[in-house]
C-alpha cells in the first residue's frame, strides 16, 4: 500500500508503512535530507515541513496523514515569501552549525505567508523551533528583514548584513 500526495509541487507516493514517521520516509525513501532529525518527539522543529501551508513536525506525523495533501520541504521551497525569507536569512548570516536552520526557514515562511503584514513579534511567537548554537538574535534580524522586504518598507539590498 502506498500513500499518494503532492511533494514539492509534484505527485508522489511513499511506500513506507503508513504509521511510520514522515521524517524518515522523506529522508530515506525520497532522499530529502534537508529534513533533519533532532528529537523524534516534535519538540525541536529540525524536521519541520509545510503541509497545506501549515508548519508541521514531520517526526511525529505518520505517513498516512499526508495522503492527498501538499508537502513542502526545504528542497522544494519557493515563491515570493520563501524568497524573501531565505534572502533575509543569508543577509543576516543567521546559520552557525546550520543543522536546525532549514526547519526555522520553513517555520518562518509558513508563518509569514499566512499574513505578511504581521509584526516581527507576532511571527516570533509562532516559531517554537530550537537552535543549540543560539542564533536567535540573527533569526530575529532575519525575520525583520523578510517582513520589511515583503511590506516594501525597505529595500533588502540596503545596508550591510550586520
Amino acid at each position, binding site marked *: 500500500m502506498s500513500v499518494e500526495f503532492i511533494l514539492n509541487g509534484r505527485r508522489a507516493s511513499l511506500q513506507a*508503512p503508513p504509521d511510520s514517521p514522515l521524517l524518515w520516509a522523506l529522508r*530515506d525513501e525520497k532522499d530529502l*535530507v*534537508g529534513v533533519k532529525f533532532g528529537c523524534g*518527539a516534535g519538540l525541536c522543529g529540525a524536521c519541520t515541513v509545510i503541509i497545506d501551508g501549515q508548519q508541521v513536525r514531520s517526526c511525529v506525523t505518520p505517513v498516512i496523514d499526508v495522503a492527498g495533501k501538499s508537502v513542502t520541504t526545504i528542497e522544494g521551497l519557493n515563491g515570493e515569501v520563501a524568497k524573501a525569507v531565505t534572502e533575509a536569512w543569508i543577509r543576516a548570516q543567521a546559520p552557525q*552549525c546550520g543543522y536546525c*536552520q532549514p526547519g526555522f*526557514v520553513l517555520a518562518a515562511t509558513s508563518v509569514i505567508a499566512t499574513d505578511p503584514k504581521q509584526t516581527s513579534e507576532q511571527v516570533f511567537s509562532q516559531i517554537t523551533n530550537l537552535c543549540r548554537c543560539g542564533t536567535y538574535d540573527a533569526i530575529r534580524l532575519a525575520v525583520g528583514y523578510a517582513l520589511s522586504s515583503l511590506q516594501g518598507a525597505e529595500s533588502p539590498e540596503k545596508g550591510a548584513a550586520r
Partner: protein
Amino acid sequence: MSEGGSTLGRIARRSFLIGAGVVGGGVLVGAGVVAWRLGAIDGYKLPASDGETSFGAWLKLGRDGRVEVAVPHQDMGQGIYALAVMLAAEGLRLPLEAVRATPAPIEARYANPVMLLDGLPFDEAAHGPLKQTAVWTFDKILRVLGMQGTGGSTSTRNISEQIRTAAICMHDMLARAASARFKVPADQLKNVGGAFLTPDGRTATYSELAPDAGKLKPNDIKPPPLARGAYVGRGAPRFDVPLKTYGEAKYGIDTRQPGQLYAAIRHSPRLGGRLDRAVIPAKIAGVRGIVEGKDYVAMVAETFAAALAGLEKAEIVWDDSMASSVSTKDVFAAYRAALDKGVDFKPRWIVDSAGDVVRASGKEIAATYDAPFLAHATMEPMNATAFVTETEAKVWAGHQSASLVQLMAAKAANVPSDRVEVFTPFLGGGFGRRADLDYIVKAVEIAGKFKGTPVQTIWSRAEDIRDDVYRPAAMADISAKVDGDGLPSSFVYRIAVPSVTQQFVARALPSAKGGMMADRTTVDGALFPFYGLPTRSIENFTVDLGIPVGFWRSVGFSLNCHFVECFIDELAAAASTHPLDYRAKLLARAGSYEPAIRAARVLEQMAAFDKANPLPPGKDGAMAGRGYALTASFHSFVGEIADVEIVKGDLKVRRVHAVVDCGFAIDPPNVVAQVRSGINYGLTAALYGRVDFDNGKVVPTNFDTYPLLSLEDAPNISVEIVNTGAALGGVGEIGTPAIAPAVANAVFAATGKRLRSLPLTLGPT
C-alpha cells in the same frame, strides 16, 4: 604575581596530566629524531593531481583556477572554513569566490599543538625562560605526534598565521614567475585580482603562472601584523550560509552510500550495565540483523524507521551485575565529604598559591556553590556511517579530530590506521561532545558485522542525552578574609570535581597513564586570577564517582568563572560597593599585571555601557535587576552585563551586553555571532540545565526533560569588540563562562537573594 622564584618552584614541583598523556602514549624521542621528523613534517606539500599546482601544505591552485585552502579543523558552526577562505583570499588578493576550503589530509603537518599547550600550568602573563622552554619543547613533541583536533577555541589561533604566511608566500612565487616570464621587475607588476599586469599591458593569470611558480623555492616571508584589510577586520559573507539556509549543507547523518543500511542503537539503561542478550522475536520487515555490543544493542535494517521499529520489538536482557547505582545526591555528598576532609583528602592539589592564607587576618566571608552535570545536546544527534572490509575501513561522520577517528576506527575495524579513510561533512554542533568518539567506534563495530556494506548508525535523542560525556557537576567552598576597605586579604578556593582530561585520556589513549597529576581544566577560571589576590590558595579535590565526563563548551571555565564571579559579587555587596567599582579596585591592586590591564580595559567599557544604558524598570511592576561578570578564558577577556526581570516568580533575562577583547577580531561579525552563541549556550545551562542520575540511570531523555533556551526566552544580546592588539585569543567558547554569574548577580540585585546552585531556581517568592 610575577614569575618569581616561588612560581618557578611550584611549577617544578608539579608535573601535569598533559605530560603524562604524551609520555604515557609511548612517545619518548631523541632530539635528533625530533629535528629530522620536524624537517619532514615542515616539507609536506598538499598532493596535486594533473593540472593542479601545490604551493606547500596549505594552498594549491586547482584545475578550475580556484585556490584551495586546506583546513585541518572541522566546521561545527564556528566558521573556520569561511575564515580560512577569507585569510587566503586576503593574502592572494583574490575575491572570496576564487578560493574554496577543503579538509586537510590526516598528516602530522596539520597537528594542533595549541589545544594542548593551553593545558600547560603557566600563568598566561608569564614570559619567563621556563615557560618559553616548556612551550617550545611541548610544541615540538605535539607536532611530531601530529594530533589534529578542533576544540579549546583554538582553530583560528592554530592556523591563521600559517595560512596568512602561505598566502603571502604563494603570492610572492606567482609574482616572481610573472617577473621571469615578462622580464619585468616584480615591483613594476600590478596585481589585478588573480592576474599580474605589466606596465606595457601584458597579463598573466595565476593559473597561467602556477606551473612555473610552483617550481620556485618559497621565500621566507612573514606576514605583516593583523590589521584591517579587504576582509580581515571587516568580515565577509560566509560561503556556508547559503548552503545551510537552502538545506544543501551535508552533515554526517546525511551520508548516503550505495546499498547503505541503517542501525538504531540502544545502550544499557544503567551506567556500567552490560548487554546479556538480545533477540528479535519474529521476522520484521526490512530488518537485516541484530548486533550485540558490550553495552549496547543495534538493530540493522534497510531503513532507519524499520531499524527503530525493530528495536522496539526486540527482547533485550541487560546484565546489571556491574551497573552503577549512583544518584545525584551521592555525588554531592561525596563532594561535601571531600571538602570537609580537607588536607587529608587524596587526590588533592594546591594548583596555584601565593602568600600565606592561614596567617591572613580580617573578617571571614564564606560561601558554597554548586553546579550540576550537563549534556551537550548537539542538534544533530550522534551518528556515524562506516564501511568495513577485511583490509580497510571508511568513516563518514562529524567529529573533532580526524587523526583520532583514524586511530580508533582502525582499532575497532582491526585494520591498519593508514587503511582508514575519514570523510568529514559539516557538524550539526560539536561543543566538545564530538571530541569523544564512542559513537564512531560503535558504528565501526556495527558495520564490521556487515562487511562490505556501509551502515549508518543513528542515536535517538534519548540515547544522545543518556550516553553523553557530561560537563561535570562540581561543588566549591570559597572564602575570603576582608580588610577594613572590604578588599580580600586572603582568598581560598576549593573545588571538588572529577577530572575531564583524566577520563578523556583514559578513553582515547588507554595505554596512556593519567591521573597522577592535577588537571588544569578543573581550576581554569580560578587559577592565576587577574584580580589582585596576592594571598590565595586554589585547591582541587578530584572526586570521581564513575559518571562519564567530557569537554563541554568552555570546560572548567563554565564552573570556576561562575563560582568566582558570584563570590566577588558577594564581596562587593559586603563592602557596600558597586560591583563594577569593586572589581576596578581589585584590578588596580594587581598593578601592571598584563591580564589585569586587559580585564580593566573591558571593565571600563562595561562601565561606559552601564552609565549610558541604565536598567529599565520592570514591566508591570516586575522586579528588575542588573548583574555583572568579568572573565578571562582561552586568552580572551569578556565582560557581560545581564538585565533580568522576575515575572510572577519566573526569571526572564531581557538583555545582555558583552564586551570582548580577543586580541584582534579577524572576522568581527562572526565574533559577535560566536559570543552571542556562547551566551545562549550558557543561558540554557544557567536557567534549565541539569542532568540527574537515579540509581545509575540518567533521568532526562529529550528536550521536554532537558529544555533548551527558546527564541521566546532568548535575550537581545549586543556585543562590543575591543581590539587591543594582544595575541589572538579564542572566540568559540568565550561567551559562555560569564553569563551564569551575570544572571545570578542580577537576580541578587533584583531580589536580594543569592542563588548559589545552578540551574538558577527562584523558589517560592
